[in-house]
């Protein structure tokens, strides 16, 4: 029941908003649908916590410890982003950057995107997972080009082509997976692609084929995760689309793609009994962290800056998953959570800041704190949080990851250390003058929605100081599920 609601409400929302998306009350409608989704997710969570893994629709969908918290997170961020986008899009309208048809497109696609995310998370069928991921690309690509500017078109085109090609590789990987599974599970079609079944028999799957499959899957989904050197679409898409979309891309899409990668890794590791997948993940992770850190150094556009920081953090998470083991996996999951919360909060503030000073160029954004202290402090705190300054949650996970790395992979720590230091210098050096100093900001017709920002930040803060036991168990269960190491 909740499950139907979970997938149904955003789908319905997409349909309804496709019609009413440009009305005056459309944003509220958007929020309402997201709220329903969120409530459904919460109810579902309660179920899972009490009853354990659930499956629906003849095992086509399932919810276990691993994806349930991602589902909740997705629903939550979806809701808060909807709340944020209400004043934001209105201001965009007034500035004439968006017109009625685009607004309709925006609202309906937003809900559609949420649907695809949720499907991708909850599906048990690797094929369906692929379909959902592709659908996610398609639903967001038009949102990236919402402003119809040359830059946004270019960004959208790159997003489309690169992710499309990537995802095609993933399809081939899926085919190989199916091929290998068929030999074990027999060709009764459906069940051969069900993750739960595959997981059951992963020991018997043909290692050679699976390793090939993993390469294709990794390159495919890795493109969407934004792992270097496959990351090139990411900064453009983040920078040129409307800010709410940047927020959900960073906060949700990357997570979901990474989720897919990890699901695959579990299977492959199960069959390979070799450290190869782990090493690949670690390699990609480190490469992404380093490249992103140095790219951060040159950024002048606020949203590009934080897009690169997303790449960096995805790199860290991937590295952690690569290291494997209870602690690292736990840390990686925690990092996924806090990163998406923090990063979306940052994008909210960044969006408002850009609107207030009429430019995304950081040189034109100055002294937020004097005109609008809340946004200023929000941006400052958010950036500090994302930079891993305690007592925010990001630090908690980085603490675990770094200490683990120091013992497990000592060779990697100097690299990580350098990258983190460079990233800190780059981001903080940019944020400080934006927040402090003489102001360039001006008032806006609609008061910005700062509830989401501070909700997210306080959640992150809370996670840094105290992780409630049930949440912790939840993470542990997930970490156990992923296993590895």
């Amino acid at each position, binding site marked *: 029941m909740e499950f139907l609601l979970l997938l149904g409400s955003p789908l319905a929302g997409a349909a309804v908003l496709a019609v009413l998306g440009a009305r005056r009350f459309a944003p509220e409608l958007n929020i309402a649908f997201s709220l329903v989704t969120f409530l459904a997710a919460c109810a579902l969570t309660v179920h899972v916590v009490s009853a354990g893994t659930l499956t629906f629709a003849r095992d086509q969908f399932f919810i276990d410890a691993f994806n349930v918290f991602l589902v909740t997170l997705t629903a939550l961020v979806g809701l808060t982003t909807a709340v944020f986008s209400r004043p934001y899009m209105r201001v965009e309208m007034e500035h004439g950057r968006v017109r009625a048809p685009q607004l309709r497109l925006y609202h309906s696609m937003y809900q559609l995107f949420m649907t695809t995310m949720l499907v991708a998370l909850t599906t048990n069928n690797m094929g369906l997972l692929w379909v959902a991921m592709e659908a996610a690309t398609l639903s967001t690509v038009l949102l990236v080009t919402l402003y119809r500017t040359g830059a946004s078109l270019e960004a959208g085109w790159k997003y489309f082509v690169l992710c499309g090609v990537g995802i*095609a590789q993933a399809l081939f990987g899926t085919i190989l997976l199916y091929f290998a599974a068929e030999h074990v599970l027999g060709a009764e079609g459906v069940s051969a692609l069900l993750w739960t079944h595959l997981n059951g028999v992963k020991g018997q799957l043909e290692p050679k084929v699976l390793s090939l499959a993993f390469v294709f899957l990794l390159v495919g989904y890795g493109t969407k995760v934004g792992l270097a050197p496959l990351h090139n679409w990411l900064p453009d898409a983040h920078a040129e689309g409307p800010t709410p979309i940047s927020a959900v891309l960073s906060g949700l899409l990357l997570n979901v793609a990474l989720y897919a990668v990890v699901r695959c890794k579990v299977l492959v590791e199960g069959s390979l009994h070799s450290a190869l997948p782990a090493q690949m993940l670690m390699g990609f992770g480190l490469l992404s962290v380093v490249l992103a850190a140095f790219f951060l150094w040159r950024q002048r556009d606020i949203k590009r800056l934080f897009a690169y920081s997303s790449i960096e953090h995805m790199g860290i998470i991937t590295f952690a998953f690569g290291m494997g083991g209870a602690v690292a996996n736990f840390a990686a999951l925690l990092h996924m959570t806090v990163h998406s919360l923090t990063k979306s909060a940052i994008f909210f503030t960044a969006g408002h800041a850009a609107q207030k000073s009429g430019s995304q160029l950081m040189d034109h954004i100055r002294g937020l704190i004097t005109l609008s202290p809340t946004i200023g402090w929000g941006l400052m705190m958010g950036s500090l949080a994302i930079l891993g300054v305690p007592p925010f949650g990001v630090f908690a996970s980085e603490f675990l990851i770094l200490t683990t790395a120091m013992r497990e992979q000592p060779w990697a720590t100097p690299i990580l250390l350098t990258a983190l230091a460079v990233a800190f210098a780059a981001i903080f050096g940019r944020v400080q003058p934006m927040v402090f100093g003489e102001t360039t900001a001006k008032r806006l017709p609609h008061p910005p929605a700062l509830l989401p920002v501070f909700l997210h930040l306080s959640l992150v803060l809370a996670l840094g100081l105290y992780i409630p036991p049930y949440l912790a168990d939840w993470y542990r269960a997930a970490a156990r599920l992923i296993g590895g190491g």
Partner: protein
Amino acid sequence: MAGVPLDIQLLNLCAALLLLLSFAMLSQRRIVNLVNLLALQGTVLFIATLLIAWRTRQPHLYLSAVLTLALKVMLLPYLLHRLIRRLEVYWDAEPLLNISGTMLIGVLIVVFSFGLAQPISALASTATRNAIGIAVAVVLLSFLTMITRRKAMSQVVGFLSMENGLFFGAMSATYGMPMVVEFGVALDVLVAVLVLGIFFFQIREQFDSLDLHHLESLREDASSRRSE
């Protein structure tokens, strides 16, 4: 190839044709021809699917054969042709790498992908196991096509032929995917093309050209980016 049943021979022939077609694409610079080649590829694919369906007597394969026919042979080429006419893009500019060089690389790729497919086809129980290598080759070749082309249109064609390659791979390795997936994939491809259509018009009205070098302003090495 005595002793091998006819349909298998035919299937292998199809496979060979597919490979040939993708090489043709690699060398082709006229966009209209590219689209025609794509349509041709679709047709071959359709035939191959039919053969496999007939051989394995799996009803859902007939379905997907029909799907292929509808989508890849008729709808997509039609749409693309319309686009071409509406946008007046007939020729691709000089490819980034000259044809002969591309061909050479193509050959290497074929060798590589055969080597790649070895373990898989060794395992495969299907009659079409030898075709797997070709499927991989088609995928990688279309990848190469996308890399070497300058016009958005020809990249799209490359993209679609990659899809074909994947589809053929699925066919020859496992007699196709579960129905759910098949439909999903087909849907996605369709939507993708529609989205592309919208895209092209947007790009046109923005730059009045589909040449990709307009789409190279978002970059890191440029000293300064213009502000929005």
